[in-house]
């Protein structure tokens, strides 16, 4: 899932400068699961903003809303009816959610309340770890289901660097070396020999390095003549 965390309250307050009434909009999908932008977080942030701006003497009225999936226009459509009364929308969605609202309601300022961090895995309650960078060309079949792109600080493809010590990454003492994990896993699966094959330099053009990405699926796309 997409993992995000809330911006500091003061940063959000400074974004709201000049606003008298805003609508805080949460999302019921990824950011609900990672406790960043669900119903509870929308309530806590909205109450915090109302109280804090009240104490500052520059009150911002914050109303609350939540949509099931902020990254899709259909789910956001019901918000449109009441938007006139708001100076801005404060999105507690991921970066996609913020941009969806901005695109859908171009006459309205849309502000991000979250920092979208990564596609991650809930390692334990309250701890999320990056697992995928969306590089566009998955190699997990070669690496025992452990991603060297997102979990190796150097995104190496042919074994660990010299900085790996006792299975720990030199960049961060709390991070396991991805290649140490890959080697151990492949040994366990009896696939270590496969790792002797040298992997060529990765073509990063399918990743973010290749510029803005788009997928077009003609099999599911609605032909122009059938669009309303």
């Amino acid at each position: 899932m997409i993992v995000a965390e809330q911006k500091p309250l003061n940063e959000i307050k400074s974004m709201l400068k000049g606003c008298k009434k805003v609508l805080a909009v949460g999302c019921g999908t990824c950011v609900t699961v990672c406790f960043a932008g669900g119903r509870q977080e929308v309530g806590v942030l909205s109450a915090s903003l109302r109280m804090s701006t009240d104490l500052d003497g520059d009150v911002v009225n914050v109303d609350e809303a939540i949509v099931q999936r902020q990254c899709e226009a259909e789910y956001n459509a019901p918000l449109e009816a009441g938007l006139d009364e708001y100076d801005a929308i404060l999105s507690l969605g991921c970066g996609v959610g913020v941009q969806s609202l901005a695109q859908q309601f171009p006459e309205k300022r849309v502000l991000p309340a979250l920092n979208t961090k990564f596609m991650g895995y809930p390692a334990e309650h309250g701890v999320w770890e990056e697992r995928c960078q969306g590089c566009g060309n998955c190699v997990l079949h070669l690496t025992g289901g452990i991603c060297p792109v997102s979990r190796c600080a150097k995104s190496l493809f042919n074994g660990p660097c010299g900085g790996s010590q006792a299975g720990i990454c030199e960049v961060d003492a709390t991070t396991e070396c991805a290649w140490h994990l890959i080697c151990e896993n492949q040994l366990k699966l009896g696939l270590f020999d496969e790792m002797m094959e040298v992997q060529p330099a990765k073509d990063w053009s399918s990743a973010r390095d290749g510029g803005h990405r788009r997928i077009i699926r003609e099999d599911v796309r609605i032909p122009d003549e059938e669009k309303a």
Partner: protein
Amino acid sequence: MTSFEPEIVAFCCRHCAYSAADLAGGGRISYSPSVKIVELPCTGRANALEILHAMEKGADGVVVAGCLPGTCHYIKGNTQAKHRVTHLRELLKTIGLEEHRTRMVNISAAMGAQFVVEITNFVETIKELGPSPLSGETSNTRTEGQS
């Protein structure tokens, strides 16, 4: 002498503090009448949102009263509540309120007198802090959220 009588909301677990309050009442041990008790099935049910809403609506202090450590009817609801209150105190500071306006206390159902002591201590703390700056009339009206 101050005539300030703080508005206190006490979220009390039904298995301990709520019964302790009842016991205090039955024993005719008096405590501040400005304490409004909200019965919860467990303090694990008390979340940041409810405590913030109480403060937003003008409570001068919010106390969460749960079972003694290790005796939660639901195993660890009271320890989770304490964890939550600790973090909420940090949020209160960020908002601009004093962190001491909320507190977690642990009391068993048999501790009616201790309940009164804990509540009275909290009331005294809030009296020292004075009224919540949010307790007066404000122009910040909260409307129900859309969904």
